[in-house]
């Protein structure tokens, strides 16, 4: 299988996660190519071993539900197929996609992680593996276990990566007097920080997740039924890279966000419910930038929050006039 894979993959010049929501892109011959699965259904294997409290069978059932959550998005064309149990490890580069527990004490702050192998000539994902760190206690209880991390919730997040989605910055945190940082709320399953044990609510996707996966794998009337807001963020006339741009729909209450991803400070937020949106621009000055962007990007976090001074209208089936938001330095 490995030698076959060598033949399939021309080159892997995987680059940074840079696109709305964020999607993963590769750059080949100067062209940016979105990384995604191109053949459905996507076959996946479950590792044939469990951890205390979660058998391999429990694991497979829980992860299957997480896959089903993404597959149920009506505006996205994706499907998955469980291919069986395997003794392979999620870290193997073997041409099959494996999900399973793995002990990784060296990542003692990481609950789970997703890796890729991509055909750089097409952007097609050839293999994607997900490991769940077995040094943590896990649960597949329907109601959650206050002493354990909910496997299905973490799986929903990781499968978002598996599909080609990056992290969302739609989240709020607080820090207490001892320095402990706690997540207060999130507008996306793809927010990268854990809430802790026992919480099961990330089993359900939020509008930002749905817009992200639908833009990547559009189905039916997604593009004709939703709208786009485009624009530019600048400081003293110069484009701002890495600004977090949020569209809030006061009618639906939905929050969908993206980043400025070019040196010109351009952004695009697709998958919006047609109608007016409030646009807020903020710096990613409270996060691990490396969790969102490639290190080579000149991310600017030294500016103040700003709002577009008018409502931005996302017309059905297209984009409105590009908007411009000027931010001020801190």
């Amino acid at each position, binding site marked *: 299988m490995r030698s076959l894979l060598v033949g399939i993959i021309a080159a892997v010049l995987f680059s940074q996660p840079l696109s709305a929501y964020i999607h993963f892109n590769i750059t080949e011959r100067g062209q940016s190519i979105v990384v995604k699965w191109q053949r459905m259904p996507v076959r996946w294997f479950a590792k044939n071993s469990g951890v205390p409290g979660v058998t391999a069978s429990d694991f497979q059932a829980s992860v299957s539900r997480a896959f089903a959550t993404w597959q149920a998005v009506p505006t996205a064309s994706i499907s998955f197929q469980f291919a069986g149990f395997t003794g392979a490890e999620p*870290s193997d580069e073997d041409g099959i996609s494996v999900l399973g527990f793995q002990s990784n004490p060296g990542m003692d*702050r990481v609950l789970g992680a997703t890796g890729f192998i991509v055909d750089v000539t097409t952007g097609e994902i050839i293999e994607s593996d997900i490991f769940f760190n077995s040094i943590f206690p896990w649960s597949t209880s329907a109601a959650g276990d206050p002493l354990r991390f909910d496997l299905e919730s973490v799986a929903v997040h990781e499968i978002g990566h598996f599909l080609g989605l990056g992290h969302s910055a739609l989240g709020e945190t607080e820090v207490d007097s001892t320095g402990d940082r706690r997540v207060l709320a999130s507008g996306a399953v793809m927010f990268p920080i*854990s809430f802790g044990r026992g919480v099961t*609510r*990330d089993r359900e996707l939020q509008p930002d997740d749905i817009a992200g996966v639908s833009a990547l794998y559009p189905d039916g009337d997604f593009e004709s039924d939703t709208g786009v807001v485009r624009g530019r963020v600048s400081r003293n006339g110069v484009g701002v890279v890495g600004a977090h741009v949020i569209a809030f729909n006061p009618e639906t209450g939905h929050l969908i966000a993206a980043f400025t991803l070019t040196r010109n400070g351009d952004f695009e937020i697709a998958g919006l419910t047609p109608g007016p949106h409030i646009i807020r621009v903020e710096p990613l000055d409270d996060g*691990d930038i490396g969790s969102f962007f490639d290190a080579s990007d000149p991310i600017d976090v030294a500016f103040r929050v700003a709002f577009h001074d*008018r*409502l931005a209208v996302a017309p059905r089936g297209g984009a409105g006039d590009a908007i411009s938001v000027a931010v001020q330095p801190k």
Partner: protein
Amino acid sequence: MLIATQNAKFRMRNANYRSCASARLTCLLLVAFCAMARSASATVLLPADFTTVVAESVTIVHGRVVDVSAGLTGPRRTIESLVTVQVIESLKGASTTDTTVTFRVPNGQVGRYRRVLIGAPEFARGDEIVVFLHGQAPAIPTLFGLSQGVYRVVRDARAAPVVIPAPVSARGIGVERVVRGDPVRRPMPVDEFVRQVHTIVERRR
């Protein structure tokens, strides 16, 4: 539940799309953010406060990346990279005579293959960084919590070296919401950042 209640306040069926005052927009959106009461659950990272990052790291160095080499490791031939840092200053663990420190990251490229682990930072020669590392000889150290264990040093508008983002730390004023764009939280001069690390290291001894 809370969302449904709050959202009802924002229904603007006859909104004048073009004429809202920015102050009103600001108010609306701020309240909307507060209405995001739906908790996110476990995803990837368990956030560590900065004191914990310092205390639990075996080695902390400020330095510049001088080499990144990828290779196949272990019986399952997993692609990893070894990152070698020329030490500018050892803040913890490394001997003052160590001129370089090497750690491994779970990504890299071997031939036509590149392994990318989402959330694992990538490095290039010339990067100036402060890294927080787990493990010690004979094991090769790894980053504390993937991207949590790296602070990159960049030049600000005045070409002064700063660390971005500045660590989110307690200010001793009780529970405090972390607000993006807070003017108080600025890119931190690297000297100040290093002093902060030294202070925590000394306090924990």
